[in-house]
Every structure is written in C-alpha cells, then in structure tokens.
C-alpha cells in the first residue's frame, strides 16, 4: 500500500511538469497578450497608448521574452519560492488572490456536497426498494425536474423569491457590513445566512442526478443472491439493506471524488456569476478573458494538481473499502 502511494506520488511529478507546460502554452495561444487587452480597454475609453509605452509595459511584465524563458521563470518561481507571480490585472500576488477565494469555495462546495449526499442517498435507496410505487414515481418525477431545470434559472428564481418575499439581500456570501471585515463570529453567522441560496441551487441538479444513480446502483444489487442469503438468515429488512446492498452500491460514489476536487475551482461558474459569489470560478473566467496569464496559469495548475490528488485519494479509499481491489 505505502509503496503504491509512493509510486503514484512520484508519477505525479512528470505529469505535473507536462501539464504545467501545456497549460502555459494554451494560455498564450490566443493572439495578443495582456498588454494588447489592456490597450484595447484603454482605447475603449478614448485613451491612446503609443508603441513605446506598450513596449515598456511588455518589458516590465517580461512579455517581450521568448515563451520558453517566460515559462522557466514562472515555474522556477513556483518551485523555489512558492511565488505564483503577479496578477497583471489586480496588481497583487496571485497567491493572495487565490487562497482567499479557495477557502470560501471550499466551504460552499462541502456544504453542497453534504446536502446532496444527505438527501440523495436515502431517497435513492427508498426509490429503489419501493420500485414502481407511488413514492418512487414522485421521486422520479422530481428528480427529472431537477435535472431539467438549468441551475442559473433556478438561481434567478430563488433570488427573486428571497429578495421580494423575505426581503433578504441576495448575491454574494456576505452582507455589505462584513464583506471587508476581518473574520469574527458575526461574520460566520452572516456567511451561514447567505449560504443557503447557493447551496440549494447547486445541490438541486446534483441531488437529482445522484438519486437516479443511487437508485440504479441499488436496483443492481437488490436482486443479487447474497441479499437472499442474508434474508434467509433471518436478518430484518432494514438491517440487511444497510449492511449488504447499500454497502456495495456506495462503492461507485467513491470514484466520484476524483472529479469532485477539480470541480472546486471550475465548477458552477455560471451560478457563481449570477449570484456574484466571491468563489474561484468567476475569477478564473475573468483571468482567462483578460489574458492575465499568471493568474490563469495558477488556476489551471491547481485544477490539474487537484485532479491527480483526487484520483489518488479515491483509489486509496476504494482499496480500503472494497477488499477485492488490490493496489499492485
């Protein structure tokens, strides 16, 4: 087991090097660079920038050097000093920008995850055990509805209801008073107060699809002979459901962890923009649009690292949970 983990960690090094290079190239592929975008923005407000100023800016940002040099500078900064570079647009170190956003994203994602699993797993099991009953049809109808409604639409509707019916201010994760305030008990309460709208929106479609998956997994397991064996032993129906088929039906969910982590960064961008949430998604989109290459690069690198770590974690968990899997 330890050897397997060590081996996997070692393999992550070349993967990350390749991926970071590709990410860097990809970000530079669109024509122009940050300075071009910057000039275009200025031009929109009738300010003209002459060639020398532009060249000066490029030289200051290091954009006049060949790409490979830029890449080497960037990657060695990360490896040697943990320095992810400077965001052109925000004129701040990238790491400052990212970590604050990531913490909030983490809170939001895990609340959503808890809500999703907490609702979907029991409902899915119920739906499978009572197949073709009235309850199952109701659940099926609701989950198809949940799948069919685009989450940004749900976001708009919920915002309207919250604002008009409850008079709550919507958008963002904090009230105005707390946005720039340091962390305190009051700020946490305020966060919880704002959290429920995005959690409901993000959990809706996730729950709906998870119910379907859970129902299908459970139906596969329910007719297996080992369930009959357990019944023939005299176990109560609830006890045997939890111990045998549910235990096996949960295994596929462990595999989903591997794409859960990268979703932290890139998931639910549309909802986050509609609700103007201070999470990582909108920042990533903005950095890509303005060709803010060090910020975008850091995000892409983060997504890749999280993907690799996520699949390692899910592989290890699967091996722990299912004795049939051997990590060799």
């Amino acid at each position, binding site marked *: 087991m330890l050897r397997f983990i060590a081996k996997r960690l070692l393999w992550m090094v070349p993967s990350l090097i390749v991926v970071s290079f590709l990410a860097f190239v990809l970000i530079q592929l669109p024509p122009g660079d940050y300075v071009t975008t910057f000039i275009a923005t200025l031009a929109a407000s009738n300010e003209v920038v002459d060639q020398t100023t532009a060249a000066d800016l490029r030289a200051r940002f290091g954009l006049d050097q060949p790409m490979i040099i830029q890449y080497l500078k960037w990657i060695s900064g990360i490896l040697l000093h943990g320095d992810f570079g400077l965001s052109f647009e925000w004129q701040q170190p990238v790491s400052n920008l990212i970590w604050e956003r990531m913490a909030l994203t983490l809170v939001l994602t895990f609340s959503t995850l808890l809500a999703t699993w907490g609702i979907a797993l029991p409902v899915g099991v119920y739906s499978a055990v009572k197949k073709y009953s009235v309850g199952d049809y109701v659940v099926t109808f609701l989950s198809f509805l949940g799948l069919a409604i685009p989450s940004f639409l749900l976001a708009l509707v919920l915002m309207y209801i919250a604002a008009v019916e409850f008079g709550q201010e919507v958008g963002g994760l904090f009230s105005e008073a707390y946005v720039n305030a340091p962390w305190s008990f009051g700020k946490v309460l305020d966060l919880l107060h704002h959290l429920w709208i995005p959690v409901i929106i993000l959990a809706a479609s996730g729950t709906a699809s998870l119910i379907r998956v859970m129902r299908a997994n459970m139906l596969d397991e329910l007719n297996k002979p080992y369930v*009959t064996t357990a019944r023939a032993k005299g176990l109560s129906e609830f006890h045997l459901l939890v111990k045998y088929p549910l235990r096996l039906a949960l295994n596929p969910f462990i595999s989903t962890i591997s794409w859960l982590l990268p979703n932290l960064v890139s998931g639910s961008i549309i909802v986050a923009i509609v609700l103007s949430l201070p999470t990582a998604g909108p920042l990533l989109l903005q950095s890509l649009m303005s060709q803010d290459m060090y910020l975008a690069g850091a995000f892409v690198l983060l997504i890749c690292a999280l993907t690799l770590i996520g699949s390692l974690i899910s592989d290890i968990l699967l091996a722990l949970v299912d004795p049939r899997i051997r990590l060799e």
Partner: protein
Amino acid sequence: MSLIDLATHAGARSATPPSLILEVKDLVTHFPVRNGIVKAVDGVSLTLERGKTLCIVGESGSGKSVTARSILQIVDAPGRIVSGAMMLHRADGTSVDLAKFNPRGREIRAVRGREIAMIFQEPMSSLSPVHTVGDQMMEVLRLHLDMGKKQARARCIELLKQVEIPDVERAIDRYTFEFSGGMRQRVMIAMALACNPSLLIADEPTTALDVTTQAEILDLIRRLQQQHGMAVMFITHDMGVVAEIADDVLVMHRGKVMESGTVDAIFHSPQNDYTRMLIGSVLKLEQKAEIRLRRSPIADETLPVLQVRNLSMQFGSGKNALKAVDDVSLTVKPGETLGIVGESGSGKTTMGRCLLRIYDPSAGAIDYRRPDGSTLDLVKADKETLKACRREIRMIFQDPVGSLNPRMTVAQIVGEPLLVNRIAAGKQLDDRVADLLQQVGLEPSWRERYPHAFSGGQRQRIGIARAIALNPRVIVADEATSALDVSLRSQMLDLMMGLQDKLGLSYVFISHDIGVIRYMCDRVAVMYRGRVVETGSAEQVCNSPTHAYTQALLSAIPRPDPRARSIHRRHRYTAA
C-alpha cells in the same frame, strides 16, 4: 463441553423429538405479470422427516426453487404465496403454520436461519464479496442465539472445522473470493448449520461445482445430517445426484407434483409419463448413441483433418505465468467426434479457442488439411489464410443466451457469416437461411423473430445453424449442451450427429459431462491441469480408464441408479 454447545444442542437433546418436521399442504405461489399470472407452484404437498433426505427434481422452470423459497417466505418480488399451509413441528411439541406469517414479520425471521436454514446454488454470489467469512457467519449466531462477539467467533471456528476448512484461524478473517468454489460452498454449509436447524434446504448446491468437488460436498452434507439428525430438502436437476443421496423423491413439472415416492420406486418403477421420460432421457446418456453404434468405424489409415502437435498456451509471463495448455497433441479425423473432457481449469476451453486462433498459442503447431489435400500450420498462418480457414472451422458456444446478439433477428444471425464472406445476398441468402433453419429443426417462418422469443434449446439450434452456414469441415463445440435440460440434451446431440453424417463434419466436443461424451464421441482426450493425461476410444476411456486421474474422475460421478450408489467408494487423485 463448553457452554456454547449446551445452548446450541438444546433442541437436539430434548427427550424424543417428533420425526415429522415440516408438512406442506397444497402450496400455491403465484407471480403476477403484465398479462396474467404465472402459477410457479400450483398445489404442492410434501413432508419432511428428521434424518431423511427429500430430493425435489425437475427441469428449469418446474417451480422447485420457488417451492423451497416459499417455505421461508423469501420468494422474489412480485411472487407471493396465495394459499396452502406449511406446518412446522417444533421439538417442544408445538406447531406453527409458516404460511400465516407476515413475510417481513418477526415470527418468520425467527424461523429463518434458526430452525430452517438454506444454502444456494452459486457459492460466489451468494456470499457478500466485501464482508469477511467470519463477519457473515457470526451475524447469524449473534442474531438468533444472542451470542457475544468472542463466543460467536469461537463457535464459527468450531463450525468451519466441522466442514473441513483448512487453517481455520486465518480463514475466518478472509473474504469469499479468496476461496475456491468448493470451499465457499463449505462456508455456506457451515453458516447454515450455525444454529443447528431442524431442516436444511439445499437449492442446487453442487450444480456450479466440479464432479470431484460435488462428491465431497454431498459426502459432507450426508455426514452432518447423520450427526445433527436434521431433515434435508435437496433441490437438483441431476438424476445422478438424486439416486446417490435421496430417501424420497418428488418430481415436479410446471409447478405441479408429477410423482412422489421412495427413490427406488421412482427410478425402477416410475408410474407417471413425465417421470418415465425424465428417467429415460437420463438413461439414454448412459450408453453410446444408437446412430453411432450402427456406424462402421473410421478407417485407421484415414488422414487426419486436424493434427495438433505439442501445443502450449501460456498466459502472463515470468513468475505469474500460467500454462493453461501444456504440450498437448491431438488428432481429429474427418467425420469423427473427438471429446475433450476435464474439470474447470483443466485448459479445455483454452485449447478449443487456440484451434481457431482466438488465442495465439505460445508454442506448437496445428496442422490443418485443406480440402485439396495440402496441409498448413494454423499457428503460423497469415491473416488471409486464417480467414479462409475460419470458414471451414467453426464454433458453437456454451451459453445460448449470451452468444446470440439480442438486437439481430434469427435470419440476420444465421445469415451473417454468409453475408460477410460474400457468399450469398438478397433472395439467395434468404433461401439459404430458411434451408439452414429447416436442417436444425426450426420452422423457417420464424426467421424474422428475435432470439428472446426462443427457448434455450431452440437458441442452441440457432447457434448450430450459424455454425454450419458456411459448410464447415470442423466444428469446435464448447460445452454446447451444458446449459440445457437433460431431456433436451440428447435431442441436441442427436441433431448434431445427424448433421455430422449428412455434412461429413468433424467435431471437437468439449465437455465436463462424461454422459454426453460417452453418448456422442468416437475418441476422448482427458485433460488435467493443461495436459492431456489419457486419449483413447470413448468406450475404453469411459469404461476401463488407464490413467489414475481418469479413474478418480469417473469414480466421483454419481450414477442414476439408487441401487448402485458408488461415490462413497471414489478415490482422489493427487498429481505427483
């Protein structure tokens, strides 16, 4: 004696236990389906007595399994017991009607696993793959006998020792997939016996096992029955097993009891037509087919159509290498049937697949004589030659369900080889398909139907029609009759032999069933761990085998005659 024994043997110790354990009267179990109801069990009555074995026999769909499951009220949805009584007589003199209990209620749960225990056919899937053996066994003890963890573990170890599991202290913490099929079935038996039930229901417990393993499991059940004095209800389709172990027999067909009586009466003076047909088709496979007895033997000097020389097939490499086929040499003559017999894992299927180069053999040669008299080595043949040869060497598979594409009509399935080899198309193809279906005894007008509309036997006929579509010279039949009921088996073999004589086919017939081999084959090769240990004429190998392994194998096969029980006299073969 420890305290545990006192607790668990209490039932067996009471003064004079009643000899009658369970009386089933007019049991009716229905399965409501979309267009009506299926009467799976239709008025079955039976009695089970202490220390006696009742065998329920019948072909697939006869309702024997549902009868057993009805007793414990564990019939799969949507089945339910409609009427009837099932009186369970307890050791303390009281009686209860199991049919009156709520299937999810506390009363029936107290009976399950405690007074009536059950073992199932497939020992792999009947145990959970993610819980240890000990975990699954201790559960019953803790549930019914209120044992603590330590006490339950001690009792489990004792039980596993009783069923002869080696290295019990470590085995108890292992998972089922770490055991062989026979060992898993032993675990199932130990689990069923945990609470000393008064009735053990065994639903085809040896069907998925090799004959030598089957003999050991049958022995074990008999020994434990004598020790514990329980009644055994044994469900099987194998008349040999019935003759070997039964005291009484109940013959079922389409949910109804056809005949019941002592094992001797059923085998030697059956009254019912269906029973006679069943016994008849079993006895038919005990000797060589008449059509083969009449045929003159193939001349010795005939040149073989296939000659396999020192064929080896290795899977994996280095330390984990497995030699599935190890230095095998065989010959097949035109018009001849060569039987390949062996237990699971003996390499017989791998060998068959090597003949068609589905697997690439790692060493050796397969010399194939073309119709023009030239020979070529299939192992070294290039793609084009191989393609041409595969028109002449075809295959029939074991599973009649899995080997036919459910999205294709029968006409498409049978016609596909003709179409892809550009032999026939359009009207001509249609005529050819109709002709092929007629040859295998299927109505040509059925050719627009899909495979699911056919029974198992009919599907296997479709598989045969597909195999003979290209006028092949050799057919490799891999367990072609194993999935069929015994009454269909001889029909299928007769059909194959008829086609052989008409079309001049050679068969390589792979089977684990000695009866089928004896009935159909001219010569037999016995495989054991990848090697051929004995070859000879079918009579010689089946009646007076020379190799010790063949002798051991034959001695473990139960004969369908209760007056000549023999498997307790079997001997084991251990490779040198």
